[in-house]
């Protein structure tokens, strides 16, 4: 799998940097795909998510309390943006402290779903982010990817093939 990590201009600010990922040769990032998939059914929820991401970048930073943690493997940073009570749309992210988040995809989380593995789409999006997080961690260990500007940015091999470390 080919990954390219990019910084989202409209959300990134002085409090946090917000990234997303292109997979293979797709023309849209995971977050753009998330918008496209949900704009018709969950537009008001999407608008709220957009506002919160904007505030995170510009004012508050990606505080842990704004996210639901333990959505991935221990220590991999995979989490979900906190759901507004009564809403169904779930967005998965990888959180690196309050300074940097990588937006993935997500989808509708119906009420009857107890765990994400019960829903094919949520499981696919969540496990993809787990894999990306693992790949980034491997590259941070080997210094192919490094932290920059007080953990506000990642630099280095931000375009990579997952097979390189298999």
């Amino acid at each position, binding site marked *: 799998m080919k990954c390219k990590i990019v910084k989202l201009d409209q959300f990134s600010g002085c409090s946090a940097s917000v990234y997303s990922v292109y997979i293979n040769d797709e023309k849209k990032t995971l977050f753009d795909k998330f918008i496209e998939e949900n704009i018709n059914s969950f537009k008001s929820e999407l608008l709220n998510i957009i506002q919160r991401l904007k505030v995170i970048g510009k004012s*508050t930073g990606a505080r842990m309390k704004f996210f639901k943690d333990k959505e991935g493997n221990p220590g991999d940073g995979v989490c979900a943006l906190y759901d507004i009570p009564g809403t169904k749309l779930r967005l998965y992210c990888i959180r690196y402290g309050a300074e940097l988040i990588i937006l993935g995809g997500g989808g509708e989380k119906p009420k009857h779903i107890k765990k994400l593995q019960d829903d094919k789409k949520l499981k696919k999006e969540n496990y993809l982010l787990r894999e990306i997080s693992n790949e980034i961690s491997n590259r941070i260990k080997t210094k192919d990817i490094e932290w920059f500007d007080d953990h506000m940015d990642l630099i280095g091999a931000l375009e990579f093939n997952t097979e390189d470390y298999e």
Partner: protein
Amino acid sequence: MNKKIPEIYTSPLIEDLLNEISPEELKRTERKMMLAARIDDALKARGMKKGDLAKALDKNPSEISKWLSGTHNFTAETLWEIGDVLDINLINIKEQRKEPVIYVASTMASMNDSQKSSIQLNDYCELVIDKNATNQKQFEA
């Protein structure tokens, strides 16, 4: 090693959605999130966990998680209760003090430059120069 800086991407889809959000809506969201951050910071400063706040206010810890998520619409009463426990003011209802005004009637023409420069405004009085007044110094409370 490739030390490439991240590519900056401006998404047309995000742009379209941002254009639908009014500055007032964004301000409301920001206030909710800043309020949650303020409560979170106060908890940390006092070495308290969300469970401690839940216990103090007789609430379920999941309710506190919701408060700290930045998505909650607080009532004034809840903010007062939280403020009392954390000893912070989350709603400033202190009345703005009406400062006393002292009127000074003075004939500017009769004052020399040194006298004029000695007149100073301070935080608690407003000095009004009445050019038509005949008395050099006339104070009204």
